[in-house]
Every structure is written in structure tokens, then in C-alpha cells.
């Protein structure tokens, strides 16, 4: 496997940070093909351009909240290389002539090293409340603006009106670190690893049935099997890609790209890989995840507030051996029902995970309806 430690290498090897004018910055970021590493995967240049096109001076926010329980890559990055994240924030804020630059970190993270690294820079480091949806763009903007940390109706985008009514650019901390390297070394250098459509490296957090869980940095487009190798995974039939809003992938040789993951309706997202253990029942696992997701609803939007607990209940019935043959279809219907009907991606992401669980583990569901669980058999045999 190509060694590609860029974000996690020693910081003093990066060299001085050039100051770029907005057009030069936009050119470099656009040519690099950098996309958001927080989950959405949106082209970074497009987002910067949206804020730059507004008449008022913007606010730039580095998002280090990392509300996904299976992800720790942002915390590792901030612990290992806070300067790189701050450099990215610095260079964007200067190019945009931003009114404020804020680095928001979760309450779980020791802000000490980050605050220390930010000394002498015009960047505010703010510790904010966590929670699964609190890291969603508009929820973070609301919290930084003194309102409850819940998402807003997306009709007005934060790039139009965010903190103090100013256009607000929210970028994930890993995205900012990549941006700092693009500015230093250029778009061509950035593209030396990864694929043509998805250049550069990404951080992945590996958990589940592995001997050495943790965070790795690999070129985009590496296969799941190769990414997992250093973590020494147990033999497994399925890997959850993208976290609790993600989807299961059963072919570990597919590359971690949009195209490779498409047949599984999965996406790289924020780089979460969770290996399902052979003795773990996927339906029990899914029911517990959806319990958690239902509890993390911001409780603003009716379909999410009502639909997610209902989904969790249906999954618990399937998991515990309720043999009602209507259960899978009803669970699918409920997942479809909540999709697209909330202010944020929480119902959609939760529904994607449920739909993937039902599709990938269809045989397992069939076994439950017949009164037995393949995972129990497997763990008893081993």
C-alpha cells in the first residue's frame, strides 16, 4: 500500500504558509479537486465561492465537532497537528477577508494543545456542546451564535446568512488541513495520490472486530481490505462504511470511491469503517444504532421525532425474533417515509442505514422470521 502520511506526518516538515489572494486560492483549491471530509463530500471550492459571492464580510468556521460516535479522526488530527488545521482556517479567512475565524471543537477534546497552537493567530478556539446533530452545519452556526444547537430549516443556507447574519463558511477540520497543504504544495502535488475523480488522501477511523482500532491516512480509492489491513480485522462478511448514517458493504475489495461504493448505496462520508464481528447479529446491532439515532433527534421535525423511535421499535422486534412476516416491509416503508422530511440529514441518514441493513442482511432477516439467528450459530460453532 502507498504510504501517504500527509496530515499525520510531523508538522515541522510542512514549511511556511503563503498568503494567497482569493482568486489564487480558489484556483488552487478548484484544481486540487478537494472535497469536504466531514461527511457531505461537497467540492470545497464551490463552497468557498458561494461565500465569496456574498456582499458582506463572512465568518469562517472550522468544524471539529465530530458527533459521529464511530469517528475519532478529527480529534486525532487536532491532537497531532493542530497547526495544519489552523493554517487552513487562516489562509481561507485572510483570502475571504473574513470578519471572524472560529475553530469549534467538541467538549470531549482537550482544547489545550489547540488553544496553544492558536496563540498569536486571529482565530478564536471555542469548545461547543456535542451530540450527533450538533455538528451539522446550521446547528453549529446556531450554537456559535448563542442559539440552541439544533439545525435550522435549510431554505436559507448558512453560506447566505449564518453567524450574526453574515455569510458563513463551515469547513471540516480535516478539509482545512488538506487545504493548508494544497496552498503550500499546489494542486498537482495534491493529486499525486488518490484517483483522478477523488484525489488526495483521507483519514479513516477503524473500529469493530479488529485487533488494532484507530485512525489511518490512506490515498482515496484504496480498497476497504487494504485500509483495514493495519488494524488486523477478524474475518468478516460486512463493513459499515460512513458510520451510523452509512451503509454496509460486503465486497471488501471495492475501492473507497463514490463509484466503487455506489452498488451498496454507501459513500466514503467522514471515513468511518466499522467491521461487523462474526458473532454479532446485524439486526441487534442495527436496532441499538437506531435507538441511539432516535435519541439524538433534535426533536424539531415531526417525521424524525416520531419516525425514528418507530423504526427502532420495528428493528427490535425483528432482532428479538418476532416472526411477523410483515415486519421487513413495514420497516422499509417507515424508512422511506421519513426520508427527505426533516431540516437536516438525520432522518435521511438513519433511513439509509436501515434500508442498507434490510437489503444486505436479507437472508439474516429471513432466518429471524423462521426463528433462528445465523450469528448465534456462528459464534457457538467457533
Amino acid at each position, binding site marked *: 500500500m502507498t504510504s501517504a502520511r500527509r496530515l499525520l506526518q510531523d508538522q515541522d516538515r510542512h514549511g511556511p504558509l503563503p498568503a494567497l489572494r482569493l482568486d489564487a486560492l480558489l484556483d488552487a483549491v478548484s484544481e486540487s479537486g478537494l472535497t469536504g471530509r466531514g461527511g457531505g463530500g461537497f467540492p470545497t471550492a464551490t463552497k468557498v465561492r458561494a461565500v465569496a459571492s456574498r456582499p458582506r464580510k463572512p465568518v469562517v468556521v472550522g468544524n471539529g465537532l465530530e458527533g459521529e460516535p464511530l469517528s475519532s479522526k478529527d480529534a486525532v488530527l487536532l491532537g497531532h497537528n493542530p497547526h495544519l488545521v489552523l493554517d487552513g482556517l487562516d489562509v481561507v479567512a485572510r483570502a475571504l477577508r473574513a470578519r471572524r475565524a472560529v475553530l469549534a471543537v467538541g467538549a470531549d477534546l482537550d482544547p489545550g494543545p489547540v488553544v496553544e497552537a492558536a496563540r498569536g493567530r486571529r482565530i478564536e478556539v471555542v469548545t461547543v456542546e456535542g451530540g450527533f446533530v450538533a455538528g451539522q452545519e446550521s446547528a453549529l452556526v446556531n450554537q456559535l451564535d448563542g442559539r440552541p444547537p*439544533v*439545525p*435550522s*430549516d435549510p*431554505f436559507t443556507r448558512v453560506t447566505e446568512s449564518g453567524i450574526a447574519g453574515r455569510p458563513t463558511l463551515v469547513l471540516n477540520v480535516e478539509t482545512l488541513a488538506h487545504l493548508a497543504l494544497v496552498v503550500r504544495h499546489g494542486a498537482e502535488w495534491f493529486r499525486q495520490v488518490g484517483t483522478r475523480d477523488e484525489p488526495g488522501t483521507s483519514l479513516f477511523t477503524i473500529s469493530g472486530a479488529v485487533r488494532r482500532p484507530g485512525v489511518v491516512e490512506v490515498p482515496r480509492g484504496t480498497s476497504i481490505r487494504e485500509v483495514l489491513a493495519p488494524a488486523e480485522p477478524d474475518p468478516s462478511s460486512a463493513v459499515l462504511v460512513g458510520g451510523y448514517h452509512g451503509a454496509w458493504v460486503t465486497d471488501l475489495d471495492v475501492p473507497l470511491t463514490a463509484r466503487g461504493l455506489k452498488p451498496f448505496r454507501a459513500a466514503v462520508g467522514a471515513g468511518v469503517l466499522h467491521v461487523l464481528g462474526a458473532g454479532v447479529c446485524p439486526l441487534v446491532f442495527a436496532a441499538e444504532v437506531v435507538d441511539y439515532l432516535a435519541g439524538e433527534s433534535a426533536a*424539531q*421535525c*415531526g*417525521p*424524525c421525532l*416520531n*419516525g425514528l423511535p*418507530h423504526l427502532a421499535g420495528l428493528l427490535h422486534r425483528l432482532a428479538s425474533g418476532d416472526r411477523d412476516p410483515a415486519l421487513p416491509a413495514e420497516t422499509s416503508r*417507515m424508512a422511506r*417515509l421519513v426520508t*427527505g*422530511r*426533516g*431540516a437536516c440529514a438525520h432522518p435521511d441518514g438513519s433511513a439509509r442505514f436501515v434500508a442498507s441493513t434490510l437489503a444486505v442482511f436479507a437472508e439474516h432477516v429471513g432466518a429471524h422470521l423462521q426463528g433462528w439467528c445465523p450469528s448465534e450459530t456462528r459464534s457457538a460453532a467457533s
Partner: protein
Amino acid sequence: MSRDTTARLHIDWTRCDGHGSCAELLPGLLGVDDFGYPVARSGERDPAVPRRDRDAAQHAVRNCPVMALRLYRVDHSGTRR
């Protein structure tokens, strides 16, 4: 010309309490889900409003007790108004 563009109905889910007047005024466009909230029959996030439903849609926007509805158009440049 904006006259040629599609009108869409946006529901602010953070406001909607499922009063149901919109679904009554726009039965062809909106149904009611298991929990009493409006659901677009087309499955679209912001359902397109056919010309024959424009008046009823404006009525629904004005009558929503929590002001959760908004009617907008997207012009050819992608700008909403």
C-alpha cells in the same frame, strides 16, 4: 422568464406541527403520514405545484397556523425566489 419556472412548496419541518390544513387544501399534492404530518405524494422534498393548485397552495401558505409553508420558484440560473 420566471413565468415558465416550476413553483414548489417548501415545508419548514422545524415549524410544522401537523395541523393538517395544507393537506386538506391540497389533497392532490399532500397526504398525511402515520403521525399526522403532511407528506408529498410525489415523494419530492419540495413538491412541484401544478398550475391548477397554485391558488390553493397560496391559500395553504397563508392559512398555516405556524407559518411553516413557503411557495417559491427556481429560475433558470438556479436562484430561488
